[in-house]
């Protein structure tokens, strides 16, 4: 038997965007709201961001990621917003039917008056960067490394080269150094750093970690684990300049070379997204947070998601 239930709003994703959207819709007067989160608890990627710098704009305070998340988790708990964790949304259709599965929840087919997609983003992996070389263990995206270190308490390596100067990579350069590892350099293909200036200063300069601008990794070597990385300077067209190769002996390569909005559920349903627009091509289905566009700071995610929650509530009010 498949259980069927109807909601005014289903929010897909229980990170900062999902929680803010649900709370805004609640404040607008919606009463039947469900937030679905695939992880074991609300908070999303903030739970592994144990560094500070969150909430400066929204709360006018300096918080860690888990602290920022917890403020919203508490607010959610103070409402009658329903939450399903350890539950995965399998599909969303244009008529706002949502299929989901969970170990405890079972298989559910839900319908809703409105849906907010707050599914976040994923990291660009090695394959997408097309870096040549062998394929040993020890090549890992910065966010995955962050999860291992901050949530699971494990080190993914001892000597690091970081590819890409996105914020996650910069933060992880400092984090690995604080944990006793050696970060040899951060390699950025562009002539300017990808992350926020404050992170370049606080995570690299303060720890004397070299930032190699206009450089790229041209070869990864090693059989079982990474053993060596070859870094070359690039020209104005981002092509490696022969003769500029430098070798770094290391056991780990961290990738921080871009975040990609995760919109697979919408894509699968043939629902389109217009750049920066909360409203999707399907009436009553909205998208916000890093699933819509990758934000530099979470405060902006919150503000955008609140607008999505209000739009969803208005849409339901208009039914």
């Amino acid at each position, binding site marked *: *038997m*498949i259980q069927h239930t109807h909601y005014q709003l289903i929010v897909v994703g229980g990170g900062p965007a999902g929680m803010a959207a649900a709370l805004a819709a609640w404040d607008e007067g919606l009463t039947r709201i469900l937030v679905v989160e*695939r992880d074991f608890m609300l908070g999303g990627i903030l739970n592994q961001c144990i560094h500070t710098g969150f909430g400066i704009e929204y709360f006018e305070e300096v918080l860690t990621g888990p602290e920022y998340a917890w403020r919203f988790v508490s607010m959610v708990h103070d409402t009658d917003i329903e939450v399903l964790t*350890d539950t*995965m949304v*399998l599909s969303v259709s244009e008529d706002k039917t949502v*299929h989901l*599965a*969970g*170990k*405890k*929840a*079972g*298989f559910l*087919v839900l319908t809703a008056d409105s849906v907010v997609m707050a599914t976040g983003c*994923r*990291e660009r*992996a*090695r*394959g*997408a960067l*097309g870096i*040549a*070389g*062998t*394929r*040993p*263990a020890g090549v*890992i*995206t910065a*966010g*995955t490394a962050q*999860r*291992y*270190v901050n949530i*699971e*308490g*494990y*080190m*993914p*390596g*001892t*000597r690091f080269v970081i590819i890409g100067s996105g914020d996650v990579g910069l933060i992880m350069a400092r984090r690995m150094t604080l*944990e*006793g*590892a*050696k970060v040899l350099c951060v390699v950025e293909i562009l002539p300017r750093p990808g992350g926020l200036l404050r992170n370049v200063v606080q995570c690299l300069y303060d720890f004397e970690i070299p930032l190699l601008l206009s450089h790229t990794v*041209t070869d990864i*070597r090693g*059989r*079982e*684990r990474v053993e060596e990385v070859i870094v070359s300077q690039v020209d104005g067209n981002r092509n*490696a300049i022969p003769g500029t190769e430098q070798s770094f002996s290391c*056991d*780990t390569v961290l990738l921080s070379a871009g975040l990609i909005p995760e919109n*697979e559920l919408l*894509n699968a349903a043939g629902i389109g997204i217009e750049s920066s627009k909360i409203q999707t091509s399907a009436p009553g289905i909205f998208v916000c947070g890093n699933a819509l566009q990758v934000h530099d700071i979470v405060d902006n995610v919150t503000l955008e998601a609140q607008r999505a929650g209000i739009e969803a509530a208005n849409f339901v009010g208009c039914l």
Partner: protein
Amino acid sequence: MFDVAIIGAGIVGAATAYELSRYNLNVVVLERENDVALGATKANSAVIHAGYDPSPGTLMAKLDVKSVAITKELCAKLDVPHKQCGAMVLALSDEEVEIVEFLYNQALENGVKDTHILSKEEVLHLEPNVSRDVAAALHAPTAMIVDPWEYTLALAETAMRNGVEIRFETEVTGITSTERGYKITVNAAETVETRILINAAGLYADDIHNMVAKPDFTISPAKGEYWLLDKSEGARVSCVLFQCPSKAGKGVLVTPTVHGNLLVGPGNIPAMDKDDVSTTADELKYVRDTAKKSVPEIDFSAVIRSFSGNRAQTEHSDFIIREAAPGFIDLAGIKSPGLSSAPAIAKMAATMISDCGVELQEKESFIDSRRRIRFNTLSPEQKAALIESDPLYGRVICRCETVTEGEIRDALLSPIPPRSVDAVKRRTNAGMGRCQGGFCGPRVLEILAKHYGIDRVDVLQDRAGTFVLTSKTKEFATTTTDKVSF
């Protein structure tokens, strides 16, 4: 004392083990790696060739054509993802039409079924994304695509369920002939005795051969590099698109995969050594540029992985299949179409064993089926019923490919359980998607650690020595400061 020992658990070794498991024989497979299909079988085009390509009269021509129908039946019986999507060889200039005509005649001579030549319009009707330069094409509807890992695994698993023993991390280091057969030294320590010895050692088949018989061939690995693209590009073509073959081989192909991705490759350059599966920027660029001649619109920004594999090329143009010494059978030099020919190679090996005087007596009960649960292929009703029967199928571990913890658990309880994160990927598709294990990797690692009762630092990414993690956090800071120079 075994009746038959097979060296190598790639597609040839696994197919042979499966074939021999029909009979009342005591069979052992010796594999140097920690899983099946980790050599040439792991990285190739995943195509079952129709058989128009090899020269008439060669073993390659005979065994490939004979295998096509058997492979299709095997895949259906043993639950191996496959699709008979057909293949085309594109003539991309008027001059190449001659090559297509030559291949058509060769197909007829080799006994390949249903091939015909398509006009430019017919090609573009079937494959609208093919280059407008196309002048004609050979169409071979019997060609298939397959999942080469699950194919090998299914054969090996079925062989095991029928009594074959497979020993992993067991490297053959010496062979001596005895009165009754052969004595094999493994890992420079233990010995295994057998009447018949089968050399299915892939890239290392020359080394094994030379331990027993007079050296008369050398494997010079030829590297093929590939791009794998996201499912967003998976519908770009509907069948396997070859370019006209040249001296360098079958050329760069563009094909859908059974998992719905797009695969582009291979190149062809000499490998530095047998284990050299590194990719190179120049060769990957060559593959990309060459593929665009067939299908100009391929969006290479959708690449999710590049990889390379080695062909077991020898100085002989054909497969080397023979009794090289009494009771010692070479199944060597199995380059393309090796994956395609494996079932017929295995049957040929069985005949050769029988010719050696070993009686092949069929088992009374031969298990010849296999099924596994693939959550993401089920209907909503089936998913609901499955989760109700076992809630572990409700917990999705890999979000890109929708793989559940139940499926990973099933793999861990199967006859050849995965010993590494990549082995889980090869069995369940977890980590095969667009994030390439970024999200599910840590969870798969945790499941493996729990299942084997080991610490997470001891979990492998793939083969022996490929540890994912190096230590616990605070342990690292306190124990290794002396090794790190700041």
